Structures are given as C-alpha cells and as structure tokens.
C-alpha cells in the first residue's frame, strides 16, 4: 500500500495539522500528550498501524482547524521524535514543521517528585528535564535528578 493510499484512508482536511510517521500504536499517546484526547470540539482522524517504507508501520493523525504551537511540537518530540508535521491551509500543505528532541526540554513536562524545589509554584525558574536516554526514553529533572519514563512524561506534560 502506498503512502498516498494510507493517507486517503481518511479524507483530506481543509485546514489543520497532519502528523505523519508517528510510531505504530502511539497515536493515542500523542493525542494525550497534546491534550487533544477526549473532550475536544475539533474533528480528529486517526489511522493506525498502516504500512510505512520508513518505519515498517506507522500511525497518522489529522487534526482539523487547529495548527500546532511550538509548545505542542516540543511535547510531540517526546512521544514521536521522528514524526513529520504539516500545516494544511485550504487543502494544501502550507508549512512543514520540524520537531526536535534536544538534550533538554524546558517547560514541557513538570517534575512531580513531591519534594522537588520546582513543586513550589511561586519559584520562577522553569521546569527543566535532561534527556538521559532516547531508547527507551528517560528524562531526569535538572534540579532534583528524579527520572521519568514515557508513561510518566505523558501524564506530567505542562
């Protein structure tokens, strides 16, 4: 099955965001990370476990009438660092956005260790987590060193 056929499993969107090359089976987690899961008024289409030349199989997400912000791209980078993001306007690709998981994520995920200095909401310094392992993904709080895996990161996204 060609990539075009995969994309055509759901109709083309007029305006919004297409997230392609999401690792197979991760689409729901991506939506949770982006805060799109559950109660949202915008139409969302998912295609899961379709063939992909690059990944073997992949998921695709189409979110209508919503363009991802930089903050959302940063969160996406934790779950699907190899994903391709396209902004669609009037049925055509208006922008291709790159996502990048660097050495550290800032104000993307909070450290939830109850005794970490950052749990005092009045302290003005940002939440900072260092990437210590990419596969499997593990991050550590820059301040207290407490580790988080992907499941925890999804729950603790800001």
């Amino acid at each position, binding site marked *: 099955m060609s990539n075009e056929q995969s994309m055509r499993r759901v109709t083309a969107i007029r305006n919004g965001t297409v997230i392609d090359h999401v690792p197979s089976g991760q689409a729901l987690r991506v939506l949770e990370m982006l805060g799109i899961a559950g109660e949202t008024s915008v139409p969302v289409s998912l295609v899961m476990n379709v063939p992909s030349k690059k990944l073997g199989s992949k998921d695709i997400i189409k979110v209508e009438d919503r363009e991802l912000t930089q903050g959302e791209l940063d969160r996406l980078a934790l779950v699907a660092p190899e994903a391709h993001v396209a902004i669609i306007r009037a049925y055509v690709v208006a922008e291709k956005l790159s996502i990048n998981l660097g050495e550290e994520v800032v104000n993307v995920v909070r450290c939830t260790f109850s005794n970490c200095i950052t749990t*005092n909401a009045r*302290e003005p310094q940002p939440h900072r987590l260092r990437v210590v392992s990419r596969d499997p993904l593990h991050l550590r709080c820059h301040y*207290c060193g407490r580790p988080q895996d992907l499941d925890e990161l999804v729950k603790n996204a800001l």
Partner: protein
Amino acid sequence: MTGLITMDDLTNEEILSILDDAERLLPVARGELYLPLLRGRILGNLFFEPSTRTRMSFETAMKRLGGDVVNLGDVKTSSVVKGETLFDTIQMVDGYTDIIAMRHPRQGAAQYAQDAASVPILNGGDGAGHHPTQTMLDLFTIRQAHGRLDGLKVVLAGDLRYGRTVHSLSHALTRFGCELTFASPDLLRMPVEIVSDLRENGATVTETEDLYGSMSDADVVYMTRIQKERFADEDEYARCAGAYKLDSRHLDNVKGDMIIMHPLPRVDEIHPAVDSSRHARYFEQAFNGVVARMALLCRLLGVTVPADVSAEGGVL
C-alpha cells in the same frame, strides 16, 4: 567549575587533588598556623534546615583562612517567613557574598540556586538528595585511615532511603572501584534508581538487613541515624527506629584496621562504649569537615593552596 552541587561536578583527579590540598591545610585547621588565603572574601551561610557540624565547619573553615562569614540566621526571623522565594533570596545573597554554602529541605534546591547565582554554591544538603561536601570529608577520612580510596569494602548502614550522605558517598565510592554493601531495614533501603545507577556504573552492590554479619571483611562501616524528621508516618518510624545498635560485642570479628564512621548526630545506633575503640573515627571525621571545606572553598574561589603551607603561613 562553578559550584559543587553533586559529586558529578568533580572528576576523580579533582577529588584527589582537593584531598591533597586538605591534607596540607591540616595545621591551619588545627589553629597551629595562620594562613589567610581567603582574606577579604565573604561566605554566605544559608541554612534553611537545622545544621550544627556543616554550618559550623564552613564558618570555621572560612575564618581559619582569614575570610568572613554572613549568616542567614534563623529562617523564622528572615524574609523566608514572609514568603520570599528561594530565587529572590539567592539573587540578594549573590550580591553580598563571594561564595554560598546552602542547606535546604527540598531536593534540587542547590542546583536551582546555582542557576540563579553568579557566585559558586556549595551544596550542604538538599532534602534527601546530595551532600557532596560531607562526601569530601568522608573520603578524606577514609583515605587518612587506609592510605587509599580504591578497591575498599565499604558497608553503608541505617537510613539509606532518606540519607543524603550515603547517596552522595555511594556514587563517589563507586567511581573509586569500592565494593559496597547496603545494610538497612527493608523500609529504608537505598532507592532503586540509585542502586540501578551505581550498577550501571560498574558497582558491586550487595543489599542486606544483616549489618553485623556483613562487617567481618569490611574496611569501612558507615553508620547513619534513622531520621525521624524524614518520616511522614510515625508508625513507619517506630518500625525502623533502633534497627541497629552497634556495640563493642560486634567488633570482635572485624578487621583490625576497619574504621567506623558516622556523619553525626547519632541517637542510639552506636553505643558510646565504641567511642574508645581503635575503630571509631566519627569525631575525627567531624573535625575533617573543616579541612575538607577549607580546601573546597579555596578551589571554588580559584585560590591555590601552597605546596609548602608552613613556609607561607605565620604563627598565631
């Protein structure tokens, strides 16, 4: 190098070089020699949690080297009770001082302070996190007794869950190839993530509840207090309190040069009768806090400790 937040801020070579500096500063720490290497420099002592040895030894270290100290004093009489953030407090003290020694009940507070400050921060304990200046004086004490750090068998006992001294020390000892035994009640085991980190770094780690059985081939037995103040649940504390009470009977079958250490204060985990045994080193260990912190203050302030201290120093 900016401050000292965790032992990861020092290479093994830097650790040994700072311990060498400390060794040369012993006569200054004892008050036998006056060597004002830090004249004109000011240390800010910010202790947001109770401290006796760490605070006093920092103060002594600075004053023995001719420097001065300003203290936050009792937190209850500072702006902290008015709701001042740590960030603001650090911004202010940063302008008053050349270096800051800090203890705080929250983990990560020292790194947070270092990010906010332009002067070096010396972490004097952040919650149950790290206590690297204690580790430096512990390493000094171990090297003083055994002449080396590498390859020793070290038993760490007591509250390994909340004890920041053993967290920092176990990381450092691993880097010197020491064999570690963690003896604790089940509730107070070393945190899983620390054991996992140590093993990933090549450590040989044994975990046991049997302290006395693990002492026979140890070079160092490092006791710690079960810290009542770290327990949220009184019942849990009651189940762990008094788990280990080291007394003279337990020293019959230990190695002749084994040393017993303790970061102090103790409650009942070491019987006072042990104090007079050849194995007891905890009071020397507490004194070594002064030399270790003198060497650290010099290093972080970029001041070289002279190779021949007696030639540079004057008599008091």
